[in-house]
């Protein structure tokens, strides 16, 4: 399946920009840099097969808001406003749809939780409309009569990450893709000068952008310990029989007895149901996870039981301690920033939504900017934490 892609013939001085990682974030950054006229290469042995392969593609700045995550909300909202322009040249290829999101409460306590959240969302100027159950069911007749409440978020849209990957790869062209694993950063004195690949060859670049998600943990030569951890998710893809179409027209996000679940309908008559959040260290699909997702999705839309379950996938999201990305330059020990290096990873649940913002921030940094309003997301903000040290005996902590 992997067709051979020849190494791009590089100008003598190497590339302008080497992007490590060909997921949605890396390809989005590369595309924006290429459109700005830079010579870009993307390094990835298997583009689009990591977290991007699993992602549902909800562009849900409003419904992804969590209490006290205001800084992240700002970046999500910024990226949501960038999405239409980002998607426009990709036309319909990427499956970008401006369908709304309905947040559904499974029972009275779930309704209270969503209403409490809405009060804070509205205080932040976000638009969340309360619907009666009958109003919601008039719009989406397949919703269960047993739901307890509904809220509409018109601003939360969707894209199909797999089609987005294909569209971005096509735009970038195979000559810009190096199907190799980046093993380590190359240093030239105090600056990063490119990467060494797993075949021992060196790829020189003026700027290297580390955008390979959790893979950044295995990239040698980084000047800062990145506090990334795998947060696994199970996600399901189902085909809707002709007679049941459309199952739903909006993205349906629900709370069912406090458990979150979502259904994202695609144009092709399929629906994506997700997603669990596990830190159990297992990259295999969890049977319990599949069961819980189907159970809770069926509580919202009973006809889910009649769909064809054609794919179950588990992938790890690159989690960070504060759920926000690691984005920007890294401080040099001697002062100032390390030259030639930009980090763009740790997007956790929000990689697809945050891709245009990541691309914008990287372009601005490439053009000499300092990250401006997005300094709070600098990758070295956690410096001083003991992350990365091997686990010894958690029972016997410092005080005992």
């Amino acid at each position: 399946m992997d067709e051979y892609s020849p190494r791009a013939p590089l100008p003598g001085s190497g590339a302008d920009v080497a992007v490590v990682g060909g997921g949605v974030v890396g390809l989005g950054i590369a595309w924006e840099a290429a459109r700005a006229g830079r010579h870009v290469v993307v390094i990835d042995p298997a583009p689009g097969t990591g977290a991007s392969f699993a992602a549902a593609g909800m562009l849900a700045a409003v419904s992804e808001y969590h209490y006290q995550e205001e800084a992240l909300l700002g970046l999500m909202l910024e990226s949501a406003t960038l999405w239409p322009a980002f998607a426009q040249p990709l036309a319909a290829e990427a499956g970008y749809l401006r369908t709304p999101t309905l947040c559904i409460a499974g029972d009275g306590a779930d309704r209270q939780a969503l209403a409490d959240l809405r009060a804070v969302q509205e205080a932040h100027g976000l638009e969340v409309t309360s619907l009666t159950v009958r109003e919601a069911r008039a719009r989406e007749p397949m919703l269960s009569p047993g739901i307890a409440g509904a809220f509409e978020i018109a601003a939360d849209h969707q894209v199909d990450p797999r089609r987005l990957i294909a569209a971005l790869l096509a735009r970038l062209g195979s000559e810009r893709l190096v199907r190799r694993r980046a093993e380590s950063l190359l240093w030239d004195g105090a600056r990063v000068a490119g990467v060494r690949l797993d075949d021992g060859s060196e790829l020189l670049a003026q700027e290297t952008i580390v955008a390979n998600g959790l893979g950044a943990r295995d990239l040698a030569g980084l000047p800062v310990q990145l506090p990334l951890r795998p947060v696994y998710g199970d996600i399901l893809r189902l085909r809707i029989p002709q007679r049941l179409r459309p199952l739903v027209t909006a993205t349906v996000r629900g709370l069912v007895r406090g458990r979150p679940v979502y259904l994202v309908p695609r144009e092709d008559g399929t629906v994506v149901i997700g997603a669990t959040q596990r830190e159990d260290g297992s990259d295999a699909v969890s049977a319990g996870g599949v069961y819980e997702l189907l159970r809770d999705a069926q509580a919202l839309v009973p006809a889910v039981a009649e769909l064809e379950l054609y794919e179950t996938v588990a992938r790890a999201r690159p989690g960070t301690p504060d759920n926000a990305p690691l984005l920007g330059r890294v401080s040099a020990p001697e002062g100032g920033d390390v030259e030639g290096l930009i980090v763009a990873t740790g997007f956790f649940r929000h990689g697809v939504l945050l891709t245009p913002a990541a691309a914008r921030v990287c372009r601005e940094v490439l053009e000499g900017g300092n990250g401006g309003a997005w300094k709070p997301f600098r990758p070295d903000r956690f410096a001083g934490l003991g992350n990365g040290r091997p686990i010894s005996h958690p029972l016997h902590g410092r005080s005992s």
Partner: protein
Amino acid sequence: MGLPTDHRGADALAVEDPFVVDGVALGSRLIMGTGGAPSLDGLGDALDASGTELTTVAMRRFSAAEQGSLFQLLLDKGIRVLPNTAGCFTARDAVLTAELAREALETDWVKLEVIADETTLLPDPIELADATEQLVSRGFKVFAYTNDDPVLARRLEQLGAVAVMPLGAPIGTGLGILNPHNIELIVARAGVPVVLDAGIGTASDAALAMELGCDAVLLASAVTRAQDPVRMAAAFRHAVVAGRLAAHAGRIPRREHALASSPMEGRAQFL
């Protein structure tokens, strides 16, 4: 009971009135679970604010092998881990999970949870007694999460549990203490520490648990799912101390009729 009553605050009180379980003295009578935390940083801040020295982690949900994980956070903070068997429905399951925890964390402490069904998440008393017996014979120190049933709690102690942990209400409900009388009965007959576990919604629930005579309170969702977990954790830190003090301060009797706080002059005082 020689509880300190000065004004040095919760921390000073905790040092002089430690919570002793299995021979280990802990400075806080609040045990915080880790489930439901929105972020690792947020959890860390809440743990700090709670003042807890002991925390439970679901062994089936968190890998101890992962760098930068929850376990690393607890290690950095010097907080003891009490592994739990959340998600187990049979004694066999629970025993296997406890063995996994002992190997991964090098502790023989285990909070034993054997759940009867997904709707109530109530403990299954028969499997619970069976698992307690097996784990005790394998050398574990069992903290038994149990129904608010005085008979079962007594039986678990007889089987060798080092602490009994009756629920206030089903897990995650935040309904508070539904049967205070049973909790009092459990406390009155217990020879091991009693920890009120599950169902706590807000600070007054924890204070009540301590007033009923419990030795400690365990909670997770009430903090991790609160809108401001740090503030709620601080509230519980104070509530547990307040309840502990009140429990041993000799409360006034409940009366049908009013009684002025300044007694009428010239009359003899009986009390």
